[in-house]
């Protein structure tokens, strides 16, 4: 029996001819990273061992969650990180002013390549599978182990193949495809499994949308999300100075084993909104009969804070104003996205509409700062989780959507289709 792309990467990195689901392998990692919340414990692990990191070029430290530091303890966490980087003279570190959200920054800067094995002390590390890498989130100790030894242990997952066919409807992007998928299989629908996204629709899906889809694999319990590299991948890499000789593009064998193959007709999918308090509570816009008034809309995060997301938001916000008493918070995910948006005049549109724009950070996505919801408030967000209290008060409610729907909802003051506000 053949192997899936995930199996192929795990077998190559553990120097075996083949691996089967359930096997446990100790494999060489190509990139290990942590953020300002998770890094201190990983750093402690390395320090206690009394060693240096295994390879300076294969370790990245990204202070993105609470930066610029929101309070004293977050400043102290960042300082642990910065001191470690300075002492070890580690190249892959970004200070405020250069930093972006890890899962947006690393692919954008050409750090992620097909065939890589990547571990990150952050659950959304699965994002990077969009480039045909095997990437999964772990605890700080696991990543500390990888920092020190260059290795990590894996239980080889079974794969589920999701085959998308058909043309995407208007306003439907990667976010809608993945929310729809999670709605179909549930938040534990891919527990322990590799989610492989395939089909004609995916072959034509822009890289940014692919990143959005793989980002949310964890929201279905998945160990990783992955897409076979193709022309779109190679083009994306070329733009970042990564040539074809720099990586191995694996593909699943035609006779690879899948525990399930799920076929999805994309023509059935309209823009999605996930209701509180789970990403699986996805509904199409036309299924929403009630008026859902909102207090805040957030456009950003590692799910939807890229330039394409901001362009779509701008196309909806152009010549529109944010509704009275509604806050619209826009956070470009990286400095490059920020600069590009500024250059294209998107900031003018946002500010004309009455939005506030922040420097790149995770911000309100995890209820950290920069837009916390008050008791009983309702928010709509382009991020990936709407658990109880995720964006602030335990009694607040959070809806998830694409940037287009979030922007339209900010204008209408309630959850609405972009078609209703685009003039």
């Amino acid at each position, binding site marked *: 029996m053949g192997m899936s792309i995930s199996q192929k990467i795990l077998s190559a990195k553990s120097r075996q001819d083949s691996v089967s689901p359930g096997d*446990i*392998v*100790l494999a060489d990692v190509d990139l290990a990273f942590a953020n300002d919340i998770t890094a201190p*414990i990983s750093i402690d*692990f390395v320090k*206690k*061992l009394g*060693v240096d990191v295994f390879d300076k070029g294969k370790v990245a430290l990204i202070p993105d969650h609470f930066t610029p530091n929101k309070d004293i303890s977050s400043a102290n966490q960042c300082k642990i990180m910065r001191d470690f980087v300075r002492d070890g003279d580690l190249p892959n570190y970004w200070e405020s002013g250069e930093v972006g959200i890890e899962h947006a920054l690393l692919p954008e800067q050409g750090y992620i390549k097909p065939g890589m094995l990547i571990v990150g002390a952050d*659950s959304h590390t699965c994002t990077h599978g969009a480039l045909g890498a095997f990437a999964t989130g*772990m*605890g*700080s*100790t*696991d990543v500390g*182990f990888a920092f*020190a*030894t260059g*290795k990590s*242990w894996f239980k080889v997952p079974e794969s589920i193949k999701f085959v998308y066919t058909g043309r995407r409807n208007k306003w439907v992007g990667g976010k809608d495809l993945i929310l729809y998928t999670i709605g179909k299989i549930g938040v534990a629908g891919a*527990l*322990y499994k590799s989610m492989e996204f395939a089909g004609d629709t995916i072959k034509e899906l822009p890289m940014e949308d692919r990143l959005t889809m793989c980002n949310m694999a964890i929201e279905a*319990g998945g*160990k990783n999300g992955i897409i076979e590299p193709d022309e779109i991948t190679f083009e994306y890499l070329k733009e970042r100075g990564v040539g074809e000789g720099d990586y191995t593009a694996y593909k699943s064998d035609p006779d690879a084993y899948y525990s399930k193959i799920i076929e999805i007709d994309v023509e059935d999918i309209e823009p999605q909104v996930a209701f509180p308090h789970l990403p699986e509570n996805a509904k199409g816009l036309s299924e929403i009969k009630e008026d859902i008034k909102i207090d805040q809309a957030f456009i950003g995060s590692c799910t939807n804070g890229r330039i394409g997301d901001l362009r779509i938001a701008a196309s909806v916000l152009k010549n529109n104003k944010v509704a009275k008493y509604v806050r619209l918070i826009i956070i470009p995910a990286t400095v490059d996205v920020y600069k590009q948006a500024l250059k294209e005049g998107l900031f003018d549109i946002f500010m004309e509409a009455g939005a506030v724009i922040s420097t790149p950070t995770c911000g309100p996505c995890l209820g950290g700062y920069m837009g916390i919801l008050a008791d009983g408030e309702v928010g709509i967000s382009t991020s990936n989780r709407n658990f109880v209290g995720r964006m602030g008060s335990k009694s607040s409610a959070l809806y998830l959507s694409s940037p287009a729907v979030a922007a339209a909802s900010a204008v209408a003051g309630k959850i609405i289709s972009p078609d209703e506000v685009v003039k």
Partner: protein
Amino acid sequence: MKFKGKAWVYGDNVDTDVIIPARYLNTSDEAELAKHCMEDIDENFIKKIKPGDMIVAGYNFGSGSSREHAPIAIKASGISCVIAKSFARIFYRNSFNMGLPIFESVEAAEDIKDTDEIEIDADSGIIKNLTTNKEYKSTPIPEFMQELIASNGLFGYAKKLLDK
């Protein structure tokens, strides 16, 4: 490797919040964490258990947050291992990393009663109920993870690996 002790039985979905409540997460001191192990599900837990005893539970043991304090607290309390119908993914991983042996067996978890005497052979995965004279098979612990446990977790394993 063999484990022997009394079973303490709990239900499904024992989450990391009851294993070690968030109010105690301001420390990572093992002894301190152990004092509060399972406190929110069983007040007397730490008083009644003896070194070597086991936790037996239902499905999805260790669900919830990724806090590594949960397996640490269990291990430091003196519990030798956990038997459950299934484990949540990150807890599963963290347990081996922290050197806490865990065994998956629906049969055993269904059958074992509170305070039964249990013996487990980690190599074969055979669970013996000495009180009832019954035997159950657990999913065997893969060789690699046995090594992790023998090294006292990921830290010890890292040391070995780096010494090679």
